[in-house]
Each structure stands twice: as C-alpha cells, then as structure tokens.
C-alpha cells in the first residue's frame, strides 16, 4: 500500500491529470464498461420497468398495471415451490460442495501418489454439461435401470431409492447430480489455495506439535479466505441460475415438485407469452441476489476502507 501511494504521488507530480494515466488500459476497458452499463444496467432497468406493465407477447411500455404481476406471482403455488426448492438446493449445495471440496482437497494435499490422476478423475464431471449430467443421473436414479435395481440384484430385495418419482424428495435427487458435477471444481480451487500457503506455516505447526486437522481448521482455512470467497461467488451464481439440470433430469416433475425460479421465468416469458410476469419473477430473483450481496459487499469492501 505504502509503495503504491508514493508511486502515485510521484506520477501526480509529473503529470497533473490522472485521467490519462494508463491510457491504453483505459481505452481497452471502454467496450467492457460500455457493455456493463448498457447491457447489464440498462437492460436490468428496462426489465424492472416492464415488470410493472401488462406486457404479453410483446413489451407494452404503455400498459401500466402497478404491482399486479407481483401479486399474481406471489399467489402462484408454482412460484412458491420454485423458491422453496431453490432455497433447499442452494443451501445444501453450498454447504455440501464446499465441505466435500475441502475434504477432497485436503486429502490430495497430503502429497499422495497419483495425485494428478485422482485430481483429473474428480474434476472430470465438471467437464460435462448440466444437460449430460442431468440425463446421466436420470438414468442412474431410474428405479428400473439404475441404482435401485443394481442393489436389488445384489440381494437386498427391499431396497428402495427412487427420489425422482417422489415429490417430497425429488429436489434432493437433483442436488446429488449438482454436487457430483460441481464439487470437483471447488476441490481444484481450494487445492490451488492450499498450495499457495507457505511451507513454513506447516513446518511451524509441526514444530509446535499441532495435529494436521487442527492446522487445517484453525490456520489454513482462515488464511484461505480469498479463495473461499471466490468459490462461494462461483457456486452461488451457479445455484441462482440452475435451469438446464432440472430440465434435463426431471423437467420440473413429478408435477411441479422440482420447479426452479429460472425455469419459471423462461416458461412464463416464452411459452405462456406473459413477459410482464416473467420480468416480475426475474426481478425477484435479482432482488434475492442483492439481498445477499449488498450486506456482504458492505462488510467485505466497506470494512477494509475503515480498517
């Protein structure tokens, strides 16, 4: 910090305007800034505005209906189930993929043999798209073809595991596929973070006689905070937009038991030809992200400036 500060003052002394510093970099960033402002911010505002209109197949900016779309949205069972599913899926997948990812990373970090091979095997599911993952797990969880049948053939006749046809637990069937696909990536991220920790820390803890698991929990994890934040952001983004996995695996069924918000938005906008309602739903999704993001950003970035 101190070094850059003095650097900046020197530059300021030579060149009065900071605007022209790193001109090339700033010019290069213009398209991205433009895209961010027009495409992301602009279109978000456009969407929010139209969520208050009675837009059907075509956007109708002049048919203002106030909060009608939101009232209907929160009165619809399908939306409520979607939200509930997203909460279950999100919470479980966040906790489980971080835990599983960390445990796998810690095991690989113990300098085992064939690390590269094992790492590749565990990361492999991440190379598959959600559509392939969903279909594969649809077959694995199919009671006549997959897991249940295999276990029964081995001899456990009464074994029953049929989550995809049971409305109460179908979302956990989706969750299994999601974690299978995603935890390898979390593992690689965390493993990279662990490799970045100074060897001397380990030497010191060994000298002190601290057991390895304690070192991980009390020393390594706090030191890996930035990596965890990165992993958290990537996982959360994946959770909010989960769509293809559900479409491929259950198409929202049985009934509407495994619907998710993103699927609701797409179907209302393009199949039910009700843009207004779809926009309202996507605005609610944005809002839910902001509710989580703003306090976090405040703590993360606001805190640093003060401290």
């Amino acid at each position, binding site marked *: 910090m101190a070094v850059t500060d003095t650097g900046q003052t020197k530059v300021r002394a030579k060149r009065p305007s900071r605007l022209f510093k790193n001109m090339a970099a700033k010019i290069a960033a213009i398209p991205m800034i433009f895209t961010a402002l027009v495409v992301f911010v602009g279109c978000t505002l456009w969407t929010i505005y139209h969520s208050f209109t009675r837009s*059907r197949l*075509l956007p109708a900016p002049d048919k203002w209906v106030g909060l009608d779309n939101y009232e209907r949205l929160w009165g619809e*069972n399908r939306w409520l189930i979607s939200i509930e599913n997203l909460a279950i899926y999100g919470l479980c997948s966040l906790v489980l993929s971080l835990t599983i990812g960390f445990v796998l990373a810690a095991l690989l970090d113990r300098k085992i043999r064939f690390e590269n091979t094992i790492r590749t095997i565990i990361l492999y599911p991440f190379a598959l798209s959600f559509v392939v993952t969903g279909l594969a797990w649809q077959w694995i969880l199919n009671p006549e073809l997959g897991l249940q049948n295999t276990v029964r053939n081995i001899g456990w006749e009464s074994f029953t595991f049929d989550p995809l046809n049971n409305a109460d637990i179908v979302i956990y069937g989706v969750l299994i596929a999601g974690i299978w696909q995603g935890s390898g990536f979390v593992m690689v991220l965390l493993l990279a973070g662990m490799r970045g920790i100074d060897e001397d820390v380990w030497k010191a803890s060994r000298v002190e006689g601290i057991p390895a698991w304690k070192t991980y929990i009390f020393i390594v994890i706090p030191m890996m905070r930035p990596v965890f934040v990165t992993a958290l952001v990537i996982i959360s983004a994946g959770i909010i937009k989960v769509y293809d996995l559900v479409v491929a695996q259950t198409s929202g*069924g049985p*009934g509407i038991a495994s619907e998710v918000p993103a699927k609701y938005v797409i*179907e209302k906008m*393009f*199949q039910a*030809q*009700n843009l207004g309602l779809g926009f309202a739903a996507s605005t609610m999704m944005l809002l839910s992200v902001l509710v989580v993001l703003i306090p976090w950003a405040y703590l993360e970035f606001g805190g640093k400036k003060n401290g």
Partner: protein
Amino acid sequence: MKLTTKLLAATAMVAASSVSAVELEVTHWWTSGGEAAAVSEFAKAFDATEHTWLDGAIAGSGGTARPIIISRILGGDPMHATQLNHGRQAEELVEAGLMLDLTDVAEAGGWADVVNPSRLLDGCTLDGKIYCVPVNIHSPQWLWLSHDAFEKAGVDVPADWFAFVEAAPALRDADVIPLAMGQQAWQTSLAFGAIMVAVGGTELYIDVLTNKNAEAAASEDMTKVFQAYADARSLSDGSNVQDWNQATNLVITGMAGGQIHGDWAQGEFQVAGQVAGEDYTCLPGLGVNEIIATGGDAFYFPKQDDPEIEAAQKELAALMISPEVQVAFNLKKGSLPIRGDVDLSAANDCMKKGLEILAAGNVLPDGVNAYSADTAGQLEDLMVEFWNDTSITVEDAQARYVGIIESAD
C-alpha cells in the same frame, strides 16, 4: 445454327422463369416420421409450381419451436411462411401488423363456404380479415383402449369412460396399469378437458371455455368433473413415463388398459402394425358424448417487402387449402381435413369416426382457441400439480380453477 437457336431459347426460358420464381422458407415443427411425410406433400405440391419450398423444420415440439418462430418474426428476420396453432398464439403478432392479410385469397377461394367447421376460419380472423390458412383438424378428446389388456383381465373392452372406470379394478388385479399417462403438464391438462366433456357435458364445457363463466366453473357439475379427474389420477398409479408416445406404447404393448389422448396417437398404433377394432379401440369423446373439439394447425405468412414474394405466399396459401393437397396431406398426417367436400375413403376406422362426427357438426371449441397462452399455462400448472400431488383435495383444486377462469382472457 439450329443448336444456337435452341440454346438461346433455353436461356431465354430460364431467364423468364427466374423472374417470377421465388424460394419460400417455411418453418414448422413436424419432424416425426408421419409428420415429415405429411409436410413433404405440401413441399411437393409447391415445387410443382415455378416456386421452391425451402424446408425449415425445427426439431422439438411446438413448445420449443414457437418461441424460435416468434422471436424470428419479432427480430426482423421473418420466414416466408410458418406453422402455428390457430387461435390465440399469434394474436398479438397479427395486431402488431406483422402478418400478411390473406382476405383476397380467401374470397377468391371461397374459404368461407368450404371450411368446415367454420370456427376454424374464425380462429384465423381478426377484425374481419383473414390472416392464416387452417390445414388440419386434431381433436384431443379420445380414449384409446388396448384389447390385449382387457383380455388379460378377462373383461370386455368398455364402450365408454364409465365402463372403463368400472373395469379398472379387474385390470389392476391382472397387473395392468388401468390408465397410461405421460407426466408432462399439457397431457394432464388435455385429459382434464376430455373428462370435462364426458362427465360435465358440452354445455358446461362451452360455458367455461367460451364464456369464461366462473360460476359454471364453481358449479356442482364441475365438482363432479374434478372428482372424476381425481379418480382417473388414481387409475394411473404406476405410469411413470414422460412423453405421450411412451404412454401410448404402454397401451400398444398391453401394459396399460387405456390412454386419454388426441387423435395423433393413432399414428403410433399404425406404426406398430395394429388394426383399429381388432387390436385397439378408439372412443371419441371418451365414448360418452360423440363430439370432438377442433384444434389443429394453421399456416401464417409473415409480411415481406418484396411484392413477388408476397404473390408466392398467396399462391402457397391457396395451394394448402386446395382439395388434392388437403387429402394427400391429411392422409399422411392422420388428421382430418378442414374442408367437408373432399373424399377420404382411404382413411382408417378411427379417422372415419372423426369424419362422421365432423359431418354431423358435433364440434366444440378447443382450448387453444379459447384461452390465451398465459391462461392455458396456468391451467396446465394446476392440472399437473393436482395429478401428481394427492394431498390437494378436489375442493381446493376447484377453487383454484375458479380463480384462473375468473381472471382468464
């Protein structure tokens, strides 16, 4: 010398025809075997003129294709002609002035006189102008029964829905699923419509669909419909298939007793080599009311700037409704023709049943014509939820149904 003249003449002819001949891109979602054969009848007939048919088939069902078609039209890259279901789906596109007005073609061809039932043409009409060509009639209210399954159970093949429900326990005892049902939302919604006609009667059906009468939707007759629907739900226990043709396959193989599905299911029976009356039975209106709703497909012609293309579009529109093309197309498609003055003696038994009902004028409006896509979507959500969640009572479901009909448009 002679050769040169010939060559010159040939070049002149090619040049002459290339002035008026245009290529029309036509999008549709008819990709299964029978459907593709049917659409190629259109293509053949159109290629026989000086124009060319450029096939733009979109894989996946209407649910996948419709958003693609609509976004192309809205995005300023319209195809020259496209399949859509007539009725409410294209309403806003027509209102926005994106579709070609076919009124002059319709008047020249006397569509108002030949199209039967005339309601089909109403679905294409907005403010007195005609914007689409209906090409076929599909009706959803059919019960398909497997003779094998009833033989296994040792009971006669039922003649209507009520006899079917009575025979169901015998089917269960014989280890046959009484009612096959694909789990997709539109299929459960279709079954509800069929049961509504059979149990609730046609007056109730028309009152709810056409008049959007919420009181009728709350009536006791409607409660009976929901009760029958709930009973049908328990009959389908064990039928865990997704797609409609998988469900039809359960009936074909005798693993299920019956299926409530549209007349397009008979294509599957045909492909499996089964004969109507011997291997399977079809009951229009579930055997209770010999009546069918007339949904179907239509072609729309997005507006173009080029007058030559416009002329070709109108030519294609006239061609699609012409008697020869109607017969060739509908025999392959397994659907009913939209004009009453053509000869379909080559049709099979089930199609003939449909033709008789049509000739007698026992027709109802279809959900596609009556509801907006939005309302239809809400109904589908309710029906598929009710079908899969036995904790929802008949009363709750009906109350929600009334709510949807109240706000329906």
